[in-house]
């Protein structure tokens, strides 16, 4: 048993990916065996399956037709061991010279290979909490990056797309959020390279930023693993607190004939709905009402019916309400967007070389003009065996991501949705002279759309060079050198038709360069002692050095609109910045398996960071884990019903330092305080020599079980995370002359559970129906925070001890008094007046639970897949509506939403929209709870129908396989939210989430595609 286990482990971990290169011994008997390996159910040939004669090193690999041929040198009968990733290994007794071997796909995937920190593991031996995702399941969803595609796929990982603009930052939270001022983003590792996930964008697009993750073409990804608990992330100690996302890109196989893969898809996207606005006459009516109401409230204002703004022109007014026009600007700004994607790849290998070459082109228009996203990528992965013991290889990703950008968020000038949505509908885009003019302080939409010229080009290289040597039979040394280089080039040109360029034009150029150099050594040792003990050890070190430089130039005053480059500007200014951080790490992990039943491991990582105080640079991050494979126990061995049962537990400490300044611990004076054109110096920040790592203790307990021959399996995890020494920009009284300083002052907890259920509901006669469901709950709480912190527009978010992060701080509207039409707010301190002391926390952005549900039905060559994601119990602030429900008080300065028509008009009216009165006086107070809404939703993220051409027909077309598919996204959305998209959030600032302002929604899209394998 043990021997078999060991063999299997070695075969699957090492030999399979490398191919079996063992030399056949001289055949003593000139016997041969030929055959074919195929899938038990589909009868499709399996390419690259390994066949080995038991007890020898003699074997072969199936070719592109699933066939193999072998000089056996054996007398019949003998036993073959047949191995193929994702299938049960089979031993077959051979009695003839030709044979057909059918393998059963391993539904419960116990032998599935899972990539973990610095290695791979079979799922059955996992101790930590790791989710593996097959990116091909979601690859048809048209967004910019794989993380956006994964929403709802990974339990405990909350992913939300705050905007419908492709390629903008997606919010990814693994088991909640642990920090206020340090990053809460997970660590991304691509083929062993820690990649930058912080946007390099400097130009303002109204609060949002481009996502660096979009530089990775999802089509190049083989597998994605999300490491969640401390056991799994501890080897990434310093940066493991927010989870780790491991990306493994595609590689070739040894001894594989070249395989060409081509994918193409084309589609369209459109907003499901847009904001409903008042017509011109309705707008005017509300303004008149507000005018008269405020006149009644404050007679000194002298506002009466007689001098109302919308009275006949003959009386000096703007005309009667019914005389007003209605201008549709939203229709002008939104469009049906086209989407296209093409991928071409070649994989293959010889006995000693294997390769993957891939090229991709992705072009997506946003539904909001003129925004586009365009990515061209190129990938080469190469592995070369130098001899039986030494292998070298490279991974290379080159990407160029080009974006036409626009301000789709906050800010008056250049603001697209300000011009399209926030401009009152009754105002003509033309002035009396027939010239296009901007209204309400915003740009003119037509001019904006015609003249928008803001774009960025990201050139990215992510590469890695490794050498791996088997020093002894059980000891392997690997050294790896990696680079993440990003050149991010942005430019803006605002000509004289636009507000920002009104004074002779404005051009800016910003070039950011980020480089991360990485060197890593690992030594891996694994040995079996006796028949029951298996021991493994990995030690290693990492050096990482990150540098970010930036050069910015700006020119104002151009001769005319044809000159667009800063060199032709009348005045130019420029700045430069430079910042660097270093990280040195040592790590070790030891594991021990007894009798394939009991697994324990212990790991320790020491990280030194240049960011912390002189004596506080080093942090130590230990973790311990254990698992018990109960199914292997004698008392369960014969219980047929239960096919697998495992109990796992782990505890460990992981750290966080991302997001703080590279020089956060140092006391600094800046040279940037000039006066009269001469340099000046000034205090910049106070030192905190005690600044140290933020540390998260995490406990995890989990159970994995499968019943009915693996047809129904589930995984349940409970976790408890507690973060101490939370990195915080602690506020200082202004009397010190400083606003704040970096300190370790917060404590935050996250507790929750995750449940995954996978089932094969039906599997007979070529019809298969499978379901996969995940649900998770996370309870977040700020355990310690000396003083509350306010974030977001109108300070809508309050971080305060005893409540969850990102809680909404509002005046709670109880009702609208049917007699007066005025809002009744809850008077929390019962002092008879509504003051800031009556603001209270009402809900947060955290859902009570969230997850996803995928159903797959396949019949013969057809496959239908429906993928739903959901979230329940979170709040969202409809800030667009706050502006749009001003009750007329903003008059010509702002749009009014159609919902404002439901306002109180006369005693007895029952409504939650009060009578129009002054902004912020009472009824339209900043931070009123009327605009705080339930953000729960159920979304059909994707519906996909595909048809695989039968092999014989595909062959006739000289193809190995041919698939056509149609895909739809966002086909339905169930939500009570009255805005457009319950995931919308205006700002990428992590402390100001959940405020929906000027954000294009995620569109509904339809695509057709074809995939050909040659």
């Amino acid at each position: 048993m043990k021997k078999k286990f060991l063999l299997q482990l070695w075969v699957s971990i090492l030999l399979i990916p490398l191919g079996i290169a063992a030399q056949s011994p001289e055949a003593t008997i000139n016997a041969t065996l030929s055959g074919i390996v195929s899938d038990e159910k589909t009868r499709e040939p399996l390419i690259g399956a390994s066949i080995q004669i038991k007890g020898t090193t003699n074997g072969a690999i199936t070719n592109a037709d699933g066939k193999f041929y072998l000089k056996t040198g054996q007398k019949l009968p003998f036993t073959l061991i047949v191995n193929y990733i994702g299938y049960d290994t089979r031993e077959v007794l051979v009695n003839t010279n030709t044979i057909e071997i059918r393998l059963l796909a391993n539904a419960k995937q116990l032998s599935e290979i899972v990539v973990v920190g610095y290695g791979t593991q079979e799922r059955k031996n996992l101790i930590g909490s790791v989710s593996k995702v097959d990116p091909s399941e979601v690859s048809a969803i048209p967004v910019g990056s794989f993380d956006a595609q994964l929403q709802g796929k990974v339990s405990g990982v909350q992913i939300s797309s705050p905007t419908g603009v492709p390629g903008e930052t997606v919010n990814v939270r693994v088991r909640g959020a642990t920090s206020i001022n340090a990053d809460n983003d997970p660590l991304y590792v691509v083929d062993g390279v820690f990649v930058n996930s912080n946007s390099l964008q400097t130009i303002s697009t109204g609060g949002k930023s481009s996502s660096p993750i979009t530089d990775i073409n999802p089509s190049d990804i083989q597998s994605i693993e999300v490491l969640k608990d401390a056991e799994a992330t501890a080897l990434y100690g310093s940066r493991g607190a927010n989870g780790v996302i491991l990306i493994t890109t595609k590689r070739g196989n040894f001894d594989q004939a070249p395989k060409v893969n081509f994918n193409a898809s084309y589609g369209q996207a459109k907003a499901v709905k847009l904001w409903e606005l008042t017509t011109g006459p309705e707008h005017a009516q509300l303004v008149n009402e507000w005018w008269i109401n405020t006149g009644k409230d404050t007679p000194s204002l002298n506002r009466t019916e007689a001098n109302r703004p919308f009275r006949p022109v003959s009386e000096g007014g703007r005309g009667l309400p019914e005389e007003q026009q209605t201008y549709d600007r939203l229709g002008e700004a939104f469009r049906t967007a086209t989407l296209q994607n093409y991928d071409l790849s070649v994989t293959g290998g010889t006995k000693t070389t294997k390769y993957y070459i891939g090229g991709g082109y992705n072009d997506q228009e946003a539904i909001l003009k003129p925004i586009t996203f365009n990515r061209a990528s190129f990938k080469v992965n190469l592995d070369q065996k130098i001899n039986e013991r030494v292998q070298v290889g490279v991974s290379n990703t080159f990407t160029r991501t080009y974006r036409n950008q626009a301000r789709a968020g906050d800010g008056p000038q250049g603001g697209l949705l300000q011009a399209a949505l926030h401009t009152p509908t009754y105002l003509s885009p033309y002035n009396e002279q027939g010239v296009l003019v901007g209204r309400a302080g915003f740009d003119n939409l037509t001019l904006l759309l015609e003249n928008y010229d803001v774009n960025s080009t990201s050139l990215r290289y992510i590469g890695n060079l490794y050498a791996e040597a088997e020093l002894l039979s059980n000891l392997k040394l690997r050294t790896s050198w990696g680079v993440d280089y990003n050149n991010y080039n942005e430019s803006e040109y605002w000509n004289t038709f636009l507000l920002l360029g009104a004074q002779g034009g404005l051009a800016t150029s910003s070039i950011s360069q980020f480089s991360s150099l990485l060197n890593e050594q690992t030594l891996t040792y694994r040995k079996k002692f006796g028949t029951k003990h298996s021991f493994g050890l990995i030690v290693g070190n990492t050096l990482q050095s990150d540098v970010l430089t930036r050069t910015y130039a700006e020119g104002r005053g151009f001769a005319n609109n044809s000159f667009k480059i800063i060199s032709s500007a009348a005045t130019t200014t420029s700045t430069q910045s430079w910042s660097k951080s270093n990280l040195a790490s040592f790590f070790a992990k030891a594991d021990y398996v007894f009798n394939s039943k009991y697994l324990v491991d212990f790991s320790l990582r020491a990280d030194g960071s240049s960011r912390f105080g002189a004596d506080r640079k080093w942090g130590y991050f230990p973790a311990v884990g254990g698992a018990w494979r109960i199914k292997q126990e004698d008392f369960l061995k014969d219980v047929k019903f239960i096919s697998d049962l495992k109990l796992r537990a782990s505890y460990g400490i992981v750290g966080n330092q991302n997001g703080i300044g590279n020089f956060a611990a140092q006391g600094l004076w800046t040279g940037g305080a000039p006066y009269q054109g001469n340099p000046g110096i000034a205090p910049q920040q106070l030192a905190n020599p005690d600044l140290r790592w933020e540390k998260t203790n995490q406990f995890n307990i989990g159970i994995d079980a499968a019943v009915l021959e693996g047809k129904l399996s589930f995984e349940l995890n409970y976790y408890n995370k507690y973060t101490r020494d939370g990195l915080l920009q602690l506020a200082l009284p202004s009397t010190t002359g400083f606003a704040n300083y970096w300190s370790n002052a917060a404590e935050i907890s996250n507790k929750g559970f995750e449940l995954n259920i996978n089932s094969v509901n039906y599997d007979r006669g070529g019809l298969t129906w499978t379901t996969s469901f995940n649900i998770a709950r996370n309870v977040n709480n700020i355990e310690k925070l000396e003083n509350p912190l306010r974030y977001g527009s109108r300070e809508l978010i309050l971080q305060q001890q005893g409540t969850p992060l990102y809680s909404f701080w509002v005046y709670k509207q109880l009702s609208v008094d049917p007699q007066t039409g005025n809002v009744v707010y809850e008077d929390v301190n019962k002092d008879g007046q509504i003051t800031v002391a009556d603001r209270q926390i009402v809900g947060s952005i955290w859902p009570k639970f969230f997850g996803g549900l995928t159903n797959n039905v396949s019949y013969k060559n057809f496959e239908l897949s429906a993928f739903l994601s959901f979230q329940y119990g979170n709040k969202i602030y409809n800030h667009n509506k706050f502006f749009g429900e001003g009750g007329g008080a903003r008059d010509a300065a702002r749009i009014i939403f159609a919902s404002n028509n439901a306002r109180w008009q006369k005693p007895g009216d029952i409504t939650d929209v009060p009578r129009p009165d002054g902004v912020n006086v009472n009824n339209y107070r900043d931070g009123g709870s009327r605009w705080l809404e339930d953000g729960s939703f159920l979304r059909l993220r994707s519906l996909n129908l595909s048809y695989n051409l039968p092999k014989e027909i595909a062959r006739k077309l000289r193809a190995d396989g041919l698939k056509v598919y149609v895909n739809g996204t966002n086909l339905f959305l169930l939500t009570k939210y009255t805005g457009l998209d319950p995931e919308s959030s205006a700002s990428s600032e992590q402390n100001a989430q959940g405020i929906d302002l000027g954000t294009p929604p995620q569109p509904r899209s339809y695509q057709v595609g074809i995939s050909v394998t040659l």
Partner: protein
Amino acid sequence: MKKFKYLLYIVLLTSATGCDKYLDVQPLESISDTQTIFDKSSAETAIRGVYSALSNSNYYGTTFQSIGYLSGDNIQWTGSQSQVQEFINKKVNAENATISGAWTAIYRTINRANNVIAKVPGVTDPLLTEALKNQIVGEAYFVRALAYFDLARTWGGVPLIVTPTSNPTQNRGIARSTTAQTYAQVLKDLETAEPLLPSTTDRFRATRKTVWALRSRYHLYQKEWAKAEEYAAKLLSDNTFQAVKPYSAFFANDARGTQESVFEIFYSANETNTHRGQWQPQTNGGTRQWAPNDALVALLNDATKGGNRSTLVAKDNQNRWYGNLYYRTPATDPTYVIRIAELYLIRAEVRAQQDKLADALTDLNVIRSRAGISPSTAASKDAVLLDIENERRLEFALEPHRWYDIVRTGRAAQVFNVTDPNRLVLPIPSGELLIDKALVQNPGY
């Protein structure tokens, strides 16, 4: 196994070499705060840093100035930020972001001045002459005096911080001094600055003359009429200062450092003044968040009242009025802290207060004549004082005087309808109260 150990050592040792050095990364844009002011050059750059703090957009750039004019009765608000409307309504909340921005910027200026005052006298550099050393320290005292003056007239008594902050435990938990004590600190700093500074004319940096000008204003606020008159006279008798004609000559056509100016803050294309953005209309690249209200537009355009001061306002392409004192591209508009016109009007006022009505009218009419309007013929003390008050409203229409003038003369109830005396000082920013328990809020907030 031996081999393994050997290898392990190699890997660990080679990587560990120089680890401490590797983890010591120093910035290139900043310097350590352990050695900052130590020679002539660093002393000179440090005092420029003090002026830079004064010019910050939250202090004399925009924010602090806006308190002075938004709280008056000349300006209306057109934007969506209610923090602006609170000043116009004279119902400022302790949560208001403008007051916290200004409070913070003023104390940051004080900390920079404190660094110069504490460190420059100890510098031993033969190139740093005693005269230059005195000048630099004197300038820092002047800026600190101005900062406490601004704090006192806006919030009343405040914590008095006179030493630099070098770690987070210093200069906090200090209770507010009384208003009188705060003003006493202003006087003390001005008295210290005066002998240290040269008697030259520099319109962008403090000299002995700048100190006199601020002292004149200080004594006016203290109702020490004779003293105010004495210090105003020191400048009014100095022919380097003139009420330039016409009114717009001190700001129009990119003028800078004219004879009108006693103290103005310098901005350049690299050190811009964002103030224009709030005033200019969208077609000029601004937001016109605030604009002259109908009453002010009418007054300025009244040939008998505004005269040629009508150049302060202009119309945009949608027929809307906007303030045009800050207009330059690039945004290099100076901030006018003290103009000679103010000293004429101070002397007019304090002369009237001392019943020297004819002398008072002489000073007042310098300003009226410059504006191109007929001389005042007010005959009683009250009438002269009212004429001066109204003159100041138009002369400083877009400058931060109106609120402070009406408050110091005790006429807020009559002019602004503010009857609650608690409303005459602004609330201490609520964020400060949260962090520093030693601070006590002004009554009524």
